[in-house]
């Protein structure tokens, strides 16, 4: 409970006993309601220093609201978090000074030059002239922007903008960076380059908190939490999350009319889940081996031309579909 008689010094919202020195983020019973709607409905998790932590979930499940609370931009309506040792309720300003933030929409001024954007962010974080010179050099190198200092940001390619945005978000050398869908809509090659940069930061001991809809990126994370309708429904290493499906058999079926075959299989006995994975049909037949042996002939007699069937290891994408399905719902 906040103390109404002392608004200048709100109470901290996480007890000291929950926080250890190697924790970058400790979230405890954190909640945010907008009217009747609980966008974040009492979540708990911990991010260790130096981790790449992936925060996954369908659109509208509470990811961005969570990040905004962790960045000290909005206050929780219950519970709270410690971020790099600072309390998001009572020390929001210190939280903001000690983190970097990069969002899906580039936080850059398009009508300023590369240099002017860097200067702007250096100003926000109060860098000294000497420090700025050092950081500027490092970022231009890292983002491969040497020789483009005077170019208008709006004229840069998406890949460059993305690297510049990362540079601006890290100009004050934060030890924790929040990245909210940093690669949304970015082509496969540019995504790969961007993750190389993230891996370098992580290798330097920086903690990264990343949201993404690309399951191949999620697999690069040390640990993941999966949020759905404001609650954490799964957490652990990518391996642990895939273990959710460890006892199930997943078949990858190559069939001429995947969507047609999918419609024919849905709700059939022995079929736990079925969905398209690229051009392939993925069928989870659960622990039943009978359905596995049957599948090609079942599809064949329904008029579908089966070109091949393989048993495959579950991927994080399979786990994602499974977890959302298990909640009874649509995304």
């Amino acid at each position, binding site marked *: 409970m906040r103390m109404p008689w002392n608004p200048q010094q709100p109470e901290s919202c996480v007890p000291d006993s929950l926080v250890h020195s190697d924790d970058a983020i400790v979230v405890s019973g954190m909640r945010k309601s907008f009217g009747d709607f609980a966008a974040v409905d009492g979540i708990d998790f911990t991010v260790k220093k130096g981790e790449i932590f992936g925060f996954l*979930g*369908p*659109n*509208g*499940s509470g990811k961005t609201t969570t990040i905004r609370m962790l960045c000290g931009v909005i206050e929780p309506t219950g519970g709270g978090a410690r971020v790099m040792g600072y309390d998001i309720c009572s020390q929001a300003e210190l939280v903001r000074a000690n983190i970097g933030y990069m969002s*899906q929409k580039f936080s850059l001024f398009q009508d300023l030059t590369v240099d002017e954007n860097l200067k702007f962010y250096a100003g926000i974080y109060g860098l000294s002239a000497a420090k700025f010179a050092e950081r500027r050099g490092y970022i231009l190198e890292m983002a*491969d922007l040497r020789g483009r200092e005077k170019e208008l940001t*709006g*004229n*840069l*390619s*998406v*890949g*460059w*903008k993305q690297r510049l945005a990362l540079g601006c978000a890290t100009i004050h050398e934060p030890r924790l960076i929040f990245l909210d*869908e940093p690669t*949304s*809509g*970015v*082509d*496969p*090659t*540019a995504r*790969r380059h961007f*993750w190389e940069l993230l*891996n370098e930061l992580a290798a330097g001991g920086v903690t990264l908190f990343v949201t993404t*809809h690309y*399951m*191949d990126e999620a*697999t*690069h994370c040390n640990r993941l939490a999966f949020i759905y309708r404001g609650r954490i429904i799964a957490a652990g290493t*990518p391996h642990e999350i895939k273990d959710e499906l460890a006892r199930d058999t997943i078949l990858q079926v190559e069939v*001429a*009319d*995947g*969507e*047609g075959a*999918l419609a024919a299989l849905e709700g059939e006995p022995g079929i736990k889940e079925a*969905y*398209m*994975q*690229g*051009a392939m049909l993925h069928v989870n037949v659960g622990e039943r081996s009978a359905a596995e042996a049957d599948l090609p002939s079942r599809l064949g007699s329904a008029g579908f031309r089966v070109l091949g069937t393989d048993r495959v290891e579950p*991927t*994080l*994408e399979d786990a*994602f*579909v499974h977890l*959302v*399905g298990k909640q009874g719902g*649509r*995304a």
Partner: protein
Amino acid sequence: MTEAPHTGELALDIRGLTRRFREVTAVDDVTLTIPRGEVFGLVGPDGAGKSSLIRMLATVLAPTSGDALVFGRSVVKEAHAVKPRIGYMSQAFSLYGDLTVRENLDFFAELRGVPRREMAARAERLLEFSGLTEFQKRQAQFLSGGMKQKLALAATLISEPDMLFLDEPTTGVDPVSRREFWRIIAGLHRQGITVFVATPYMDEADRCNEIAFMAQGRIILRDTPTGMKKRVPGRVVEIAVSDYRAAMPVLKRLSYVRSIEVSGEMLRTLVDCEDDGACEGEMRALLSSSGLVVEHVRPTATDLEMAFATLIPSVDLPERDDRAAGPEVPE
């Protein structure tokens, strides 16, 4: 997707289509034909000119030179005849947040001149088709990202177009919602509607009948997804090893390793060697002698990510900002 029926008729006949913005040639002499009934994917790096190409085909951007025929009618001279037959969902497609799902559909129906007596039936059919019936009284601003995209698609379909242009319709959408969106596209495909879709997701490109790779304003390749994979020079070998980051520099020392990509926790290498297992054996031995625990080294299928990475020349080009060129007009 099922194979498109071979009616011989062209949905699209693009002839030397070019668009320049000041000194930048965004679309550079594109010639391409697309048979009726296909789902055709447009894939390429950011800034390749995909959106400008789509905007010209959708008659909202005037070509600098060249022409395109949509069902035989010119986008330059007969835009009035093209418009009633197409639907266009741009990246900036916007719904009215304070209108309900149903009101949004009614609004777009009126805008597209749908006869009043048909409006209710069409809206109901589209709501059903896109799985939005139970949400029809909800304000659009309270829909999840995936549902918003489905509503945008339904609004695009209200005029019952024969050809759909979709510009990255699922960017920033979670995996489950993306699947639902593609089920709808498969349904449209079955109805014989031609779909021209730009996407940054290779699993989506894999579901198209044919795809074109676009780079620097030009179509550089056009093939089926299977054909694209066959064009990749070399074989793909998948490597699961205790520490993939440490394995990368080790593998780079081998002259026949052309490229390495990280895929989840595994490495996928493109190798230029015989299919006799010799290279696999050498890679395994080299990794082991470098102190890494090798789980497996095995040949695997090429995927579209690999095709994208190897077949499209990687150039960091300035982004073309065609938004400055003119207002987006829905009709």
